[in-house]
């Protein structure tokens, strides 16, 4: 049987699709930064992934949806939890014992998996914006910086301006008044990154992390965040080539099962 299997991850800020064949080989992946309607966005992402794979829609045997918007995907054959999908996806890329740190727009989680891709422990936060991608989004916009460039801008900052507010709403006022005081943007951004790393490190410590961390989700491409988190936890951090599609990859593996 030569079918293909699809996974779709509907996040708060991005929609991702991955196709695999029946030997778990990744055929294609597509990722889009969007806040559009979940079902329209998911269909679009899936069609793009099919196009990239050179296959046709008829080859697609099973589709599994995950992510915060999974309930809207009525054409999916099954829904699966974000934690399980992260574990399966990361384990396919790195078949080893590890701790996955997944930082999304409105949630972040630390997941311990063993060498058989089984989740042994996890902690997540989806109640508060502190430490999430939205926190960085709000602060970048207050500082007039493109979120995609935020990590690079402060990567070599000689100084870190500490942000004392925990809440994103209060941190925004704090950042704005610091700009008025003349604090350089890179120092403020460094402080914003430090605040996020502080929150993420605290949940990672709660799972008692394994020897290696695999960083996934939209913020995994941020080089400053990676550097600071690595220093803070003193654990090697690996970032997959395409960290935003790990959840969708896990969903595709579920589809094959």
């Amino acid at each position, binding site marked *: 049987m030569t079918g293909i299997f699809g996974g779709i991850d509907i996040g708060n800020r991005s929609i991702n699709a991955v196709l695999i064949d029946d030997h778990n080989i990744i055929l294609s992946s597509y990722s889009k930064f969007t806040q559009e309607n979940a079902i329209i966005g998911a269909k679009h992402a899936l069609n793009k992934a099919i196009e990239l794979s050179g296959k046709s829609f008829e080859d697609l045997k099973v589709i599994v949806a995950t992510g915060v918007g999974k309930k809207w995907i009525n054409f999916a054959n099954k829904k699966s939890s974000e934690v399980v999908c992260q574990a399966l996806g990361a384990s396919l890329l790195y078949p080893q014992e590890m701790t996955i740190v997944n930082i999304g727009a409105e949630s972040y989680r630390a997941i311990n998996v063993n060498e058989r891709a089984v989740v042994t422990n996890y902690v997540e936060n989806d109640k508060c914006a502190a430490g999430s991608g939205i926190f960085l989004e709000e602060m970048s916009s207050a500082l007039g910086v493109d979120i995609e460039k935020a990590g690079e801008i402060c990567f070599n900052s000689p100084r870190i301006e500490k942000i004392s507010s925990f*809440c*994103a709403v*209060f941190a925004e006022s704090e950042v704005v008044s610091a700009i008025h005081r003349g604090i350089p943007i890179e120092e403020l951004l460094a402080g914003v990154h430090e605040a996020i790393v502080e929150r993420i490190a605290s949940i990672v410590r709660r799972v008692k992390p394994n020897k290696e961390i695999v960083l996934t989700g939209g913020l995994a491409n941020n080089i400053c965040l990676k550097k600071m988190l690595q220093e803070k936890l003193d654990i090697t951090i690996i970032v997959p080539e395409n960290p935003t599609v790990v959840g969708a990859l896990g969903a595709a593996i579920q589809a094959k099962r």
Partner: protein
Amino acid sequence: MWAGIDIGSLSAEAVIMNSEKILSYAILPTGGNSIKIAEKVFQKAVSFIKNVSESDIKYVVATGYGRVIVPFADKNITEITCHAKGIHYLHPSVRTILDMGGQDCKAIRCDESGKVINFVMNDKCAAGTGRSLEIVAHVLGVELEDLGGMSLGASKESKISSRCAVFAKSEVLSLNRAGVPKNEIVAGVHDAITDNVLELVSRVEIEEDFAITGGVAKNKGIVKKIEEKTGLRLIIPFEPQIIGALGAALFAREASLQAYMLD
């Protein structure tokens, strides 16, 4: 004459009183310069009283988060203590106070003499503060002052599932885009905020009478929600924003009289 000054995160208040009564009060937005605003709000309150100048004020107590930077204050006292003192002066029967300010929210229990027995405070998170209502008003393009009235007219209520003010902002935005009537969204926001603050109040255990103070107390939608959920009638002072400053003025009077006795 004595004065109390409350420098909050979003607004500043001054109250001037003599040995008998409150003579005047003023409320101004805090803005960027706390020292300047302390002087301004004090001057404004003084200007309301005929033939009186600032030098006639014998003793000034400052309170609120900016209390330490009021240069002309003789003393500063925490806002928790001042709130209990202020409410006791106006409504001696009150034992529980919910103060909903611009950037924090506190529940205070006091005894029959207006002394604080217990308090719980949230100043780490914007959920349930005036600031979160400001964000909602901004996203919906309506005035902060109109939120209360809007929600009272709603026949239905949207469900706001986020507790975090930042996440709630996205929820409000997408409900608004989906064409949900604004008053239903606002009613939903009020419901979520009320749940948040009542959790705080439950930690000090509500004892009657129950009063609400701070800028948010002017929001009739929130007040009605709290009354519905607790089954209690709320006492709302004639000007809920000046209670901290009033308490400070009362402490100024006491301190000044004590000094006089010692002389």
